[in-house]
């Protein structure tokens, strides 16, 4: 049976991971490759590396980091941040990334999704959507790290992205992100019902039950989290044993 995926997300700035971690046995605590390897050994199913660098120099550092990840890790990984055109995608895939995640650039120029999927196949194109549930109950999409609303709703945009050739939707609920009270299960369930491509749940993980609920209630195909893994609040082996006890199929 196809397993539900657990995906740690690493923010990278100037070639170093940003958030502190509780991993003790790393030679270089801030090295994304070392951290990635540690997660891989613990049973992470995929990894996401997000480049949060703004400078050109930082971008180059990120590319060489991607090359090192590809050399050393034997699980799939996605890279995101700063991907605005086909040339950026090409650079990341040539460096060895399996998939790229695009966010604001796709909302500003949706044709980028068509370009990526027709050049490299849908499987490399992850469309990340940051959305917030407004007071009127509608989920609105935001760009630039959640600062600007773009006047598209989550469900319309996710569907459009799918029709244009996205291979997966990575949905982050801005209402739930960082609050650690669980994922946006109702919105996830609606996405799962409306889409025929996999949905990755993001934002809100605090306890192991939250992952169970994202898979069971939210019908997500994968769940992504950062700080609960980085700070050791949840260990991946423990989480997977728990999910299996709860009859959710995971790779152990």
């Amino acid at each position, binding site marked *: *049976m*196809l*397993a539900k*995926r657990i995906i740690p997300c690493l923010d990278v700035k100037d070639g170093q991971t940003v958030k502190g971690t509780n991993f003790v046995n790393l030679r270089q605590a801030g090295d994304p490759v070392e951290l990635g390897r540690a997660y*891989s050994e613990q049973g992470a*199913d995929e990894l996401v590396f997000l480049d949060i660098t703004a400078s050109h120099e930082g971008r180059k550092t990120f590319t060489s980091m991607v090359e090192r990840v*590809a*050399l*050393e890790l*034997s*699980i*799939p990984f996605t890279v995101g941040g700063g991907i605005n055109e086909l040339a950026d995608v090409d650079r990341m*895939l*040539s460096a*060895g990334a*399996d998939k790229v995640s695009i966010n604001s650039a796709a909302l500003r120029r949706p044709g980028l999704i068509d370009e990526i999927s027709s050049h*490299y*196949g*849908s*499987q490399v194109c992850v469309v990340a959507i940051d959305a917030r549930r407004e007071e009127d109950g509608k989920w609105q999409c935001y760009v630039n790290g959640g600062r600007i609303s773009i006047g598209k709703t989550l469900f319309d945009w996710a569907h459009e992205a799918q029709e244009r050739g996205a*291979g*997966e939707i990575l949905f982050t609920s801005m209402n739930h992100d960082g609050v650690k009270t669980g994922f946006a299960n109702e919105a996830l369930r609606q996405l799962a*019902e409306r889409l*025929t*491509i*996999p949905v990755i749940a993001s934002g809100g993980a605090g306890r192991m039950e939250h992952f169970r609920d994202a898979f069971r209630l939210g*019908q997500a*195909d*994968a769940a992504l989290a950062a700080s609960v893994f980085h700070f050791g609040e949840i260990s991946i082996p423990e989480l997977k044993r728990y999910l299996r006890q709860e009859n959710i199929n995971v*790779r152990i």
Partner: protein
Amino acid sequence: MEVAVVDYGAGNIYSVIHALERLGIRPTLTNEAELIRRADKVVFPGQGEARQAMEYLRQTGLDQVIRNLRQPILGICIGQQLMCRHSAEGDVDCLGIFDVPVLRFQPQRHEDKVPHMGWNSLEDVASPLFDGVDDGAYVYFIHSYYVPLCPWTLATTRYIEPFSAALHRDNFYATQFHPEKSGCVGERILKNFLSL
């Protein structure tokens, strides 16, 4: 050991090269018939589209080279599909090493998403390619077309219906999944292939 990785313009071949390098091999990426014929082992990787890939193989004569190899060869993902008789992807005749057609997944329920993407488990695994790999081991798949069960099925995976996760006939081996992306299980399978 000389390992040739067949270069036929398919997508991401770096991961399979890196995976071999992690096992201490320096593979040669090549489309030259002589280098492929001379290698001890041949890896036929891939991502891409069946019709384009077959056109390239025919134009370069690599189709005949691959059919006539005597040393162990491992087709991966679309590599496996190209080793079959015919692919529904682009309705194209393939190499015919395995006399079985390649079909597209037909979703039966809303939850049946195509492509089949992620970690799925192997059943009824048979050695030697799967020495040390147990039934139930997880490997990484990403594909929309599949090879049905057939006399050459070497491992089975269930998605929508049971299909061939791996094939074997004589010196020809193939996996639908990506051993180079399948963690330690995949590493073990590549090691087994290299020790054939």
